[in-house]
């Protein structure tokens, strides 16, 4: 990569000069960054800008400009462009880190006080939420786990198989029709999915409100995300792998199950987890279908249940005092931790199942 050609003594000095172009020292990017931040803050403070967002933006711009010009003057055009790209990537990293860390920090800060063994092990039954800090989220945790699990059990296999169909078999009108509707479905507002299930399942077919009817709506929201991301990952599996497998006489279905899917399992897991993450935080369809009980109901097929996002929404919008906010942030923190835990487990399984080697 770098020009570290060794030069024999006999080489004329001019040529040597060309082969080993001048390079910035290793500490140059860090120094540039530090200087840019300092100057950026200086400008910000001097101009009396209140918002620290502006300070950051000025620093970032300075950093990009300085690192390019510095490198261009010392190392030449190509290296400068490389440095510029590297700087850009680092800047985008920082751009992302700031709001993301702020959001995480904010939620933890607001929610951590609410978390206690009582909070995790009690329902809200018999608690007057407006007047008392008591009660907990046990019923909501149970509800969310069951609803998300059921939704995933419905949506993940269907989504996965559909993606397999589209990538491995799909040609012709059926495949394009499926692709078409999957595309449309990615933008369905969650309220619509909830309403659809309400009209079909609860009103036309006459089933009662239950955790399961909520799961159905969540499954609808989940399927397009699973299909879309899985499809993308399956497409990336090199054809050489498939061909090698066929050449060995392995039937197609076995090739798909043993070669294609394991190769793409990391990406597929990411896709499914994204979908799970999306539905776990959904409020609107759950509100209509699950109904928000305040007691523990561990049967998802009968009677109203509770779910964490619905609980957060109720505590925030209907209680409107510190007791409610406290519970809402506590539940939000638990919800995030729950999805994160799921994520880690899914990744562990994916890594354990995936073929070794490669990256």
């Amino acid at each position: 990569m770098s020009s570290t050609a060794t030069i024999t003594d006999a080489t004329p000095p001019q040529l040597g000069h060309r082969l080993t172009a001048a390079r910035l020292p290793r500490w140059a990017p860090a120094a540039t960054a530090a200087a840019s931040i300092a100057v950026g803050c200086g400008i910000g403070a001097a101009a009396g800008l209140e918002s620290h967002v502006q300070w950051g933006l000025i620093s970032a711009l300075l950093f990009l400009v300085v690192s390019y010009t510095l490198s261009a003057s010392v190392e030449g055009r190509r290296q400068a462009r490389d440095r510029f790209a590297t700087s850009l990537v680092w800047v985008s990293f920082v751009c992302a880190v700031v709001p993301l860390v702020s959001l995480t920090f904010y939620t933890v800060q607001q929610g951590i006080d609410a978390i206690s063994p009582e909070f995790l092990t009690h329902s809200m039954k018999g608690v007057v939420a407006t007047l008392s800090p008591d009660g907990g989220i046990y019923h909501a945790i149970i509800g969310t786990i069951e609803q998300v699990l059921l939704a995933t059990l419905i949506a993940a296999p269907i989504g996965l198989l559909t993606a397999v169909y589209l990538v491995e078999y799909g040609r012709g009108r059926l495949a394009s029709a499926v692709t078409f509707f999957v595309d449309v479905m990615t933008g369905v507002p969650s309220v619509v999915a909830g309403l659809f299930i309400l009209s079909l399942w609860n009103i036309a077919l006459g089933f009662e409100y239950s955790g399961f009817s909520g799961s159905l709506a969540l499954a609808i929201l989940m399927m397009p995300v699973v299909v879309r991301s899985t499809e993308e990952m399956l497409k990336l599996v090199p054809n050489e792998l498939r061909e090698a497998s066929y050449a060995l006489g392995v039937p197609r279905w076995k090739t798909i199950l043993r070669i294609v899917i394991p190769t793409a399992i990391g990406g597929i897991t990411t896709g499914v987890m994204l979908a799970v993450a999306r539905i776990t935080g959904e409020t609107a369809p759950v509100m209509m279908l699950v109904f928000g009980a305040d007691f523990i109901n561990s049967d998802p097929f009968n009677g109203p249940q509770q779910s964490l996002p619905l609980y957060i929404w109720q505590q925030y919008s209907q209680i409107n005092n510190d007791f409610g906010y406290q519970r809402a942030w506590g539940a939000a923190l638990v919800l995030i931790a729950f999805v994160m835990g799921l994520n880690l487990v899914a990744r562990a399984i994916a890594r354990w199942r995936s073929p070794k080697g490669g990256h």
Partner: protein
Amino acid sequence: MNLRNGRSKALAIGAVALVSTLSLSACGTDDNTSKTTSGSSTGGSTAAAPAKIACADKGGQLLGAGSTAQAPAIDVWKAAYSAACSSATLTYSGGGSGAGVTQFNQGKVAFAGSDSALKATEVDASKAVCTGGQAIDLPMVGGLVSIVFNIEGVDKLVVDGPTLAKIFDSQITKWNDPAIAALNPGVNLPAADIQAIHRSEDSGTTANLTGYLAKAGGGNWKYPAAKSWAGQGGQSANGSAGVAALVKQTKNSISYVELSYAQTNKLNSAAINTGASKPVEATAANAAATLASAKVVGTGADLALDIDYATKAEGNYPITLVTYEIVCDKGNKADTLPVLKSFLNYTVSDAGQQAIGAVGYVPLPAELAGKVKTQIDALA
């Protein structure tokens, strides 16, 4: 290798954390009564004395849906009722009056909570689920809409109907406008822009305010009373909680929220010059006086109320509201009827009405409560 090791360690920790969280909470309970409530909260888990509640012979599941405005009231009642009658479970989903009435007319809930009385079309639709009867309005939860403001250095403000209408329609845009100054002699009003804030979603609260503005605004409010906001200009926020937060955040702002939101957010409420001898403060007592003089306009078993927004009586706060429970007069589902009657009998009782007074509602006047009770006893 080393790296992979480290990562799998992280994974293991994550998995252990998850599993332990789950097993930790695997011993969950519905029992909140044994807990010692921390000192100051007098209300606590065992809010109302369970003694006076007459339970139904047979328990069961009672579902209700509707108005978010009365959700905290139902919450209070639910706690007391389920403490006394353990065989009945009650669930109320506060998804909005419109959604509640729709669900009621689809036969999916036993009662609906609504901010406004039923329309004729809704009553017609209800005949499909109320076999041999129809849906009726039972006034249950009284309240008031308080005009809240945030002006630096001003903690008392008087407004009247026409001025409010002009403020919320951007016809008056400065706080030191002569119309406002005339109502507030001796108050040092700033020369700042008025930031009028309204609800961004459709709501019963907006319907009450616009009903008042249309009646008492002296023709300055050109729009009908409606749940959705029609006025010009201003900013909006979602929910009473959002409005209250925005008023706190924004200098020189004015808006409208239910009494409980004004209290918990410690916002200043304006007094209203109704034409009575002195401006009327936004207090529960003043709202109760208005409720007492409201006329029943419903026919038959229906007890829909007409509140006189243009009231000039002494100490009658004009922007008063009542929300209803909607049930079938005849033809309620047989398996939920006993629990429904016993629950509503509790909510309309003195104990029930006083209990919600503590969370910012206005107890129904005794005479009206008596009428409601008669109807509840007649439900079939």
